[in-house]
């Protein structure tokens, strides 16, 4: 057998193997064919790709699949906002109604100047660690913001920061994914409609006399706000006032009479400032 024959056999053998595999692949391609909706890829393309989970689905892929299947609304992604919803609406062929913008809201106004402190907290610098100790952090209030910034560390949108000892939400950046609310050991963060004009910046459940000892700006549960409200939108539960954002008309009667100034006016974003 000379070199030429050897080469020939090799080439023919390889060609035959290649042909067999080719036939197998064509067969498998037909047999295991999966119908892919082109829209899913298109929707996924429009979604922001943070994989934040704010929509409630496992990442953006999951959300796109859910939208195409019709399980989720076209405006399911709070991060993409109105513009994404519109584009997805075009793809899906339905008109998109922009979801009401929601934001995180911290129910504490006890910054370094207002909240009374009882000592200095030394230890693991996370809120969860501080909250597990008797007496919690620096502040006397047991329900207030501990100011150690666990919410800051989980926010993927740079929308929450510790300012002067308490967490402050940047309403322009916040997409209401709710991660901060989940991680806060004090359960102080609430997701509220961005357009709500008034909110109670306190969560202290103690009675008035004790609250005064703990903080300059604590809800004393006096109930004046309840009396002032004409729309039955304010209620005092467990010595703290709560506003029902559905019923609130934003008249401001409660805030005007609040003796501890814990019901605060939330400036409404101007139209041109709104993030698209």
């Amino acid at each position: 057998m000379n070199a030429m024959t050897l080469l020939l056999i090799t080439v023919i053998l390889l060609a035959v193997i290649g042909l067999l595999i080719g036939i197998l692949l064509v067969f498998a391609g037909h047999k295991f064919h999966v119908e892919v909706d082109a829209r899913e890829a298109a929707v996924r393309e429009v979604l922001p790709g943070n994989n934040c989970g704010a929509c409630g689905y496992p990442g953006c892929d999951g959300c796109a699949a859910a939208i195409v299947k019709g399980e989720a609304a076209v405006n399911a992604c709070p991060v993409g906002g109105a513009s994404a919803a519109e584009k997805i609406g075009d793809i899906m062929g339905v008109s998109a109604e922009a979801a009401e913008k929601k934001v995180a809201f911290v129910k504490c106004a006890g910054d370094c100047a207002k909240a009374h402190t009882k000592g200095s907290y030394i230890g693991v610098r996370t809120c969860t660690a501080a909250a597990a100790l008797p007496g919690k952090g620096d502040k006397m209030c047991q329900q207030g913001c501990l100011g150690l910034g666990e919410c800051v560390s989980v926010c993927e949108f740079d929308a929450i920061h510790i300012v002067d000892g308490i967490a402050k939400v940047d309403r322009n950046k916040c997409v209401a994914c709710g991660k901060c609310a989940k991680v806060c050991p004090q359960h102080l963060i609430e997701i509220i409609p961005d357009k709500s004009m008034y909110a109670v910046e306190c969560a202290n459940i103690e009675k008035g006399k004790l609250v005064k000892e703990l903080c300059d700006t604590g809800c004393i549960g006096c109930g004046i706000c309840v009396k002032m409200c004409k729309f039955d939108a304010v209620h005092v539960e467990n010595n703290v006032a709560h506003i029902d954002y559905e019923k609130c008309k934003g008249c401001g009667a409660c805030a005007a009479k609040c003796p501890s100034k814990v019901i605060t006016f939330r400036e409404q974003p101007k139209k041109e400032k709104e993030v698209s």
Partner: protein
Amino acid sequence: MGIYSFRGGVHPKGNKELTAGKAFVRLIPKGDMVYPLSQHLGKPASPLVKKNDPVLAGQLIAKADGFISANIHSSCSGKVKAIERRLNASGVPVDCIVIANDGQFTPAPGVGEEVDYSSFSKEEIIAKVKECGIVGLGGAGFPTNVKLMPKNPDEIRYIIANGAECEPGITCDDRLMREYTDWIIKGLKIVLSLFPAASGIIAIEDNKPESIRAMEEAVKNEERMSVLTLKTMYPQGGERNLVHAATGMYMESGALPASLGCIVDNVATLSAIYRAVAFNEPLMEKGFTATGDGFNEPTNFMVRIGTSLREITDAAGGLKEETRKLILGGPMMGPAVSNLDAPLVKANNALTAQLEDEVEKAELEMNSCIRCGRCTRVCPLGLIPQQMARACERNDIERFVKLHGADCIQCGTCSFICPAKRPLTQLFKQTKPMAMSYIRMQAQKKEA
């Protein structure tokens, strides 16, 4: 008899010399007395008095609410000033009964009168202990009557009187064993009468030779009692360590001492049992050490429960100006005090004032873990704190439970020894409640 101990442990500076030589001083409180409704483990007691009600010393003012709960008695006479929420020593608002003290301490009828208890049945003794609101005075405040009713009373072989007092600085149990030896012995005898198969072991660390001598003298004629000298080692007074020292057996994970036929009671609890059974005297008074370099005159006090910490501090010569930190209990396990107007509750046994805050210094020196393994070597439970801490930092509860993190007694030994000054104990404290609920969830799943 050799010197018994456990595996692991550390040697923090004892600081017992500050107060060990000082006899108890009886503190007569002058100000209002405050009684938090939750001075024990378990459900808070429910108040029986109203505002402006007159009360006498030893009168029941709040009743145990549930099986694991304890009665609370007034330790002074006077009038109920208020039932309101006040801040406790850590600054947490708790429900309290406040009594305006008239300074007379007029006893309620029957309180303090000697009774012949030799004819009492077992049930009567346990009922008396329950009625008098006695809880574990070593620190945890577990209702003693519950402890005295194990499921296997005939299998109890050892009653261990815990006189180890391993926390640095505290000397009130030491003084109690020297000055009120008789009460402890009689209390132990009462408990022994409940368990016919048991023998009493009084366990004392060897840094308290006077107490050992006093106790050995007292048990000379007692057939069922002996004194066990323990090595001075922190945390020798932990229940598991004591059971091991006394019986040579290790308690299983999650088990109670009763599973090995042991009941562990603090010496102060035993003396309270004696006072309750023999004198019908509810838990009103206890030994308390005010110690640390921050006090002008560190002292051992016999103090009434409900006295404000400020009165105790004043009686101990006041605090030095440079005092950095106050701790309720000893420096190893005690929580920081932020409110001196808080009252002394049943389970408190010391107030430590420090000129230097070790934790503050440690935080400045904190560094990365170098995996030296010292924490593992000293852990009295044989856990691996280094790996547990990593699980805590990652919030990996499953791993934490797998490493038996839920057994951690938070004695602080690992944090003490760590050369990198890692806050190990705090991480465990934070994760343990989550681990407990995880275990409960797993158990429920298994049942379902």
